């Protein structure tokens, strides 16, 4: 049976982007987020947040939370640092009241922004093999402080 609209729990949807050294699967990410929430807020707090990973494609994702717990959810996402020993950080793109809003307003905008040709002045380009899930493997920074490090790294890659 449907819940009465007035009794429905109010939710918010948070669009985020995952930056990681290695590919992170959906299961690993949701596990890590729930771990982080448990260690920050305990069972009671996590229950109140009512979090759920709704979608995740290897790079972008949407997480659900209670309307008045967006700040707590943000803090929990900020505390995710490692998945299987690889460094990870979650960047919240924005919060919306509907899933469609979160997708259209933040994730699609972010993808459009990235696909545009980069400003030539930035000088930030990376060479690397891209996996299916867009995660850059063997990333090399070609504008380093110390030029020797590039030589060393690219040599390692050839091996």
């Amino acid at each position, binding site marked *: 049976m449907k819940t009465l609209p007035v009794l429905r729990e109010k939710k918010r949807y948070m669009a985020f982007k995952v930056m*990681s050294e290695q590919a992170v699967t959906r299961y690993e990410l949701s596990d890590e987020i729930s771990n982080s929430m448990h260690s920050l807020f305990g069972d009671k707090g996590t229950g109140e947040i009512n979090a759920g990973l709704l979608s995740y494609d290897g790079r972008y994702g949407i997480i659900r939370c209670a309307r008045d717990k967006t*700040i707590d959810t943000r*803090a929990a*996402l*900020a505390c995710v640092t490692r998945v299987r020993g690889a460094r990870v950080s979650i960047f919240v793109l924005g919060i919306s009241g509907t899933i469609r809003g979160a997708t259209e307003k933040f994730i699609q905008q972010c993808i459009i922004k990235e696909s545009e040709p980069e400003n030539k002045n930035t000088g930030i380009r990376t060479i690397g093999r891209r996996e299916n899930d867009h995660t850059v493997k063997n990333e090399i920074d070609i*504008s*380093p*402080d110390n030029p020797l490090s590039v030589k060393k790294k690219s040599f390692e890659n050839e091996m």
Partner: protein
Amino acid sequence: MSLFDARFYDLAVHSLENGDSTTRFAFEAKRYGYSGIAIINPELNNLDQVRKPDGFMIYPCIEISAVPGKIRNEIKKYGSSILMVRGGGEDLNRAAVEAEGLDILMQPAKFNNVLAKAAEDTSVALGFNTGTIIRMRGEVRVRELRIMKTNLMYARKYGLRMILTGEPSSLYDLRSPRDMAALAGLFGMTEKEAVDAMRMAPLEILRKKSRDYIQEGVEIL
């Protein structure tokens, strides 16, 4: 207008490890919403020559690690950079807050009303390191949160300036200003205080360190 449409600064970025370049870090920080960073004890001699986005500034920050008696000498030596002392025992904290010219006392574990009063007189800002919340788990984090809560209490009572930083040492440690405010909320800091700790307080310190500044109230225009 949102509180977060402003220029933010992170005044305590560690020298980057794992070959991440300062340039790349600067671009990433800009994307996250920062307008400037200060690098602790930079290995590069000339930070002005590092390529960085338009309008983005990189400053040097010197972390003084000396015995309590030597802090004053160190301050004289590096006067033109942002000066920071990492909180430690009571003697060190005391020497730090009583030293004229110091900018930041980072996360002192033993802080009390006497030290707070001295910090008010010398206008030393109190640093809050959210990096410990991000990276630690369990008992250590509980202790750090406890420390930050008491420090916040003294800062409010004595009107001390607060500095909020994540002390990132790689690209993956960087957090956006909103995330930092959310993390600061865990130990009771309000959003407005957090924004001020990333904007007003750093700007004040940078103003003091600019060439035109002579002393409090005297400035070349």
